[in-house]
């Protein structure tokens, strides 16, 4: 029986493994083989070691900053009730899926010498010189990374926190422990696994960060990914880029393994447990002025500025048109978005870029869903030693440089029978490979908590395996599939690095268009309008995600 089940799940893994083998491992390995002989050389150079050290350093600072911002946010989301809480919970994840180039744009608009914050401070305080000189420093990079990743920390910790059984805290308090003691000795230890797993994920993402570092820091702050891009694109030195990618891959696979070891889950935990009491966030009267509350107010202002600020700056800027005389209100940015006429600065009509993003997203999800589902099944149900390692290998796309992935796909499939290079399919496949791990991570925890006895009960009542899957497991998994699908769609929408490599005229997407528009000088409003489009679509996707996810939770 066990052998048959093992064989079944191993076979189930066959199709996704074939997919990955064809479109991830094989292309990647051929490119990396070019770089392998250069690795010892590369590691020996102090320059490379400096870049590696800086990459780790900025990732560490960014992770800490994300926790500093995200953990209090989780606290607020868990312990307090306020109007619009559901909206905030849904929309707080929007920054995570935005293309880095949009975020960089928002930061420049907000924090530059002539940015909104400095302009406001100079007007309020009557200053001559702009007080905040944030850009082109490590601080800007870390802050932007915190913007990106604090929501992830917030949601993961919040989900875990809400799932905690309140009885432990209540007992501790009944035994006379002060609230701080309860927090440090009872709550925090229970939250630690989720927090650590979220931190590891954030570390991986910031380790691989590229457009943010380049735009907000400049060439002096080079991470491994920036180096890979520069070697490949500017210096035409693919073997060197491949060597660096190998080094990076080694590191990030280690981190992915650590993440999985910590029980890596990032999707909402959908559990029905007794929820702890929440207090209103905006109380009336004297309660509102207690020092405890004032700290919360201060934090809210800071986090609103940090999280919503760049997005609002982009939104505002999308309605401003730059002319030689100055900026004026106008809808040119949005009209540009809907133009069907060819635009040489993108290499496509703008509307084509919008439609491409949508169709590539749909295509990527169509592939990622079945592949992710199959992998989730295989990985959770297969009982073999080294399962963690298998999981890590299957999650490898998260840890891989998207620049190298794009390059690899371009190189590998130039000839028939799979002459994908230069076609839409190359982009769709690249996106599918990059986003499918998120489907797995959304579905796997649900699979793990599914009560197997239900399936067995259905079987014993005469249902076939397929029927049992359809009637018992599928409804349970639908919320996870929806979460995975929407996340995958939003991530595909914002994918920049690999698409930059693969997109030729006809295949441009919205983030690529923004990147290329930003390399020019005019038409910042067009870039802002495109960014607003992406923000809107992502926000809609996440709102839908919350609604559908909760519907699934409430049961049928």
């Amino acid at each position, binding site marked *: 029986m066990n052998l048959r089940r093992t064989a079944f799940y191993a076979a189930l893994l066959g199709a996704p493994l074939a997919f990955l083998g064809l479109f991830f491992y094989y292309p990647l390995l051929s490119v990396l083989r070019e770089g392998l002989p250069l690795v010892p050389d590369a590691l020996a150079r102090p320059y490379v070691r400096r870049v590696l050290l800086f990459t780790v350093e900025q990732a560490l600072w960014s992770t800490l900053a994300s926790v500093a911002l995200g953990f209090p946010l989780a606290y607020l989301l868990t312990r307090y009730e306020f109007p619009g809480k559901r909206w905030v919970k849904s929309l707080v994840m929007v920054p995570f899926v935005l293309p880095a180039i949009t975020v960089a744009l928002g930061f420049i608009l907000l924090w530059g010498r002539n940015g909104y914050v400095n302009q406001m401070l100079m007007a309020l305080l009557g200053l001559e010189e702009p007080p905040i000189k944030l850009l082109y420093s490590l601080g800007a990079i870390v802050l932007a990374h915190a913007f990106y990743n604090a929501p992830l920390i917030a949601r993961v910790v919040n989900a875990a926190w809400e799932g905690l059984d309140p009885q432990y805290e209540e007992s501790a308090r009944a035994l006379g422990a002060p609230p701080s003691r309860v927090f440090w000795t009872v709550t925090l230890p229970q939250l630690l696994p989720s927090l650590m797993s979220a931190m590891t994920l954030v570390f991986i993402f910031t380790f691989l960060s590229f457009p943010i570092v380049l735009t907000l820091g400049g060439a002096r702050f080079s991470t491994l990914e920036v180096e890979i891009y520069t070697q490949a694109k500017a210096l035409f030195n693919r073997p060197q880029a491949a060597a660096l990618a190998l080094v990076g891959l080694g590191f990030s696979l280690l981190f992915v393994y650590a993440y999985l070891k910590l029980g890596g889950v990032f999707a909402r935990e959908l559990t029905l447990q007794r929820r702890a009491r929440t207090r209103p966030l905006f109380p009336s009267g004297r309660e509102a002025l207690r020092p405890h509350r004032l700290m919360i107010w201060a934090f809210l202002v800071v986090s609103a500025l940090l999280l919503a600020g760049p997005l609002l700056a982009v939104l505002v800027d999308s309605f401003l048109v730059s002319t030689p005389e100055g900026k004026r209100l106008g809808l040119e940015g949005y009209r540009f978005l809907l133009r069907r006429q060819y635009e*040489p600065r993108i290499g496509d009509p703008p509307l084509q870029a919008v439609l491409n993003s949508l169709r590539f997203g749909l295509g990527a999800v169509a592939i990622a869903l079945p592949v992710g589902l199959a992998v989730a099944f295989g990985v959770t149900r297969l009982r073999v030693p080294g399962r963690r390692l298998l999981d890590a290998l299957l999650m490898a796309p998260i840890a891989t440089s998207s620049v190298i992935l794009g390059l690899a796909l371009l190189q590998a499939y130039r000839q028939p029978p799979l002459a994908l290079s230069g076609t839409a399919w190359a982009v769709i496949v690249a996106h599918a490979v990059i986003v499918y791990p998120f489907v797995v991570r959304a579905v796997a925890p649900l699979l793990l908590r599914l009560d197997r006895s239900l399936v067995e009960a259905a079987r014993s009542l005469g249902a076939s395996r397929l029927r049992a899957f359809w009637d018992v497991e599928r409804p349970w998994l639908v919320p996870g599939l929806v979460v995975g699908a929407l996340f995958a769609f939003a991530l595909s929408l914002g994918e920049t690095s690999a698409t930059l490599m693969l997109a030729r005229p006809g295949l441009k997407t919205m983030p690529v268009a923004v990147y290329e528009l930003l390399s020019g000088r005019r038409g910042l409003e067009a870039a802002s309008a495109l960014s607003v489009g992406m923000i809107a679509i992502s926000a809609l996707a996440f709102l839908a995600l919350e609604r559908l996810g909760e519907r699934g939770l409430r049961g049928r």
Partner: protein
Amino acid sequence: MRNTNLILRAATGVALLGIGILVLVLVSGPAALPIVVQAQAEEGDTLYVYVYSSFVEWGPAAFVEQEFERRTGVDVQFVATGASREMLARLLTERDAGGTPADVFMGELNDVPKAKQFDLFEPLSVEDVPNLQFVPRELQVDPENTLIPYEHGFITLVYDTQALSAEELPRAFPDLLDGRFREALLVQDPRTSSVGHAFLFWTIYNFGELFPQYWERLLPNVLSVFPGWSAAYEAFQAGEAPIVVSFSTDACFDERYQPFFLEGQAYRTVFGAGVVKGTDNPSLAREFIDFLLSLEVQEKLPTTEFMFPANAQAELPEEWQRCAKVPPAPAVLPLSAVAENDDRWLQLWAETVVGR
């Protein structure tokens, strides 16, 4: 009962999905079909020109397209998604991926050694491009004329007259190292920007193999190293710093921004056009390049590109005499030296600047 409910719901879902896809396809028109089909259909009567983005944003791209179409009936499509080096990389990537639609490439002549290394262009002569005879010898830095020069200029430092006065300006390279210029300079990455590349060569012209030491001491005065000229100029105009590496013709664009030379020097930069190897329209491509060198287009360059025309017969606008500065001692490294050393120099630069 439950089964029909299920089937009904599944059918509705599929129907909605189908309608959605149909709408998407209809809205996007023939563009929804695989791009390969479309590209092949277009190649017969379209000339693809790969050029750096400012040619389209500022330059006479629209005029060139219109006029060429009027003359030959051929549709010109510019692809201008980045700087010169980026466009070259794009060309290479597309060619490696099975083929590029590009017929003509317009970019900086310092990229010619790299282009030759990858055999990207067809060599040209005055028979192919008759107007080449009007281009002065000193601009034809490449004997094989892989890229035929159509415009040239001088890379130098430009300052914001509202932030600095003329007396405060540095006069020579060592002055730039002074403490009063802390975080005052905006420069570009020579690996990704032709302007940055030219500036690096300018320091090499003056300091030879000791240039890394100069850059090490220059770094505290550099606010940031931008990936491209546009990003640096955007920051310059936003007032982030008072000095930027740019063109000696900037005053013609806005009198507020004045160029200045160091010891009478500025670095020569030449832009040229070439025929991409493997193009479907070689004769059309050559005709296009010849058209770029015609007086019609050449006399449009100063007011749009803010560059000097390569055709010696072209007349310069009146105001140009006043605002377009020509250095008494233009600096330029021979292309052969660039071909031999560029990779090593860029490596040295990166090791000096990155991570410090």
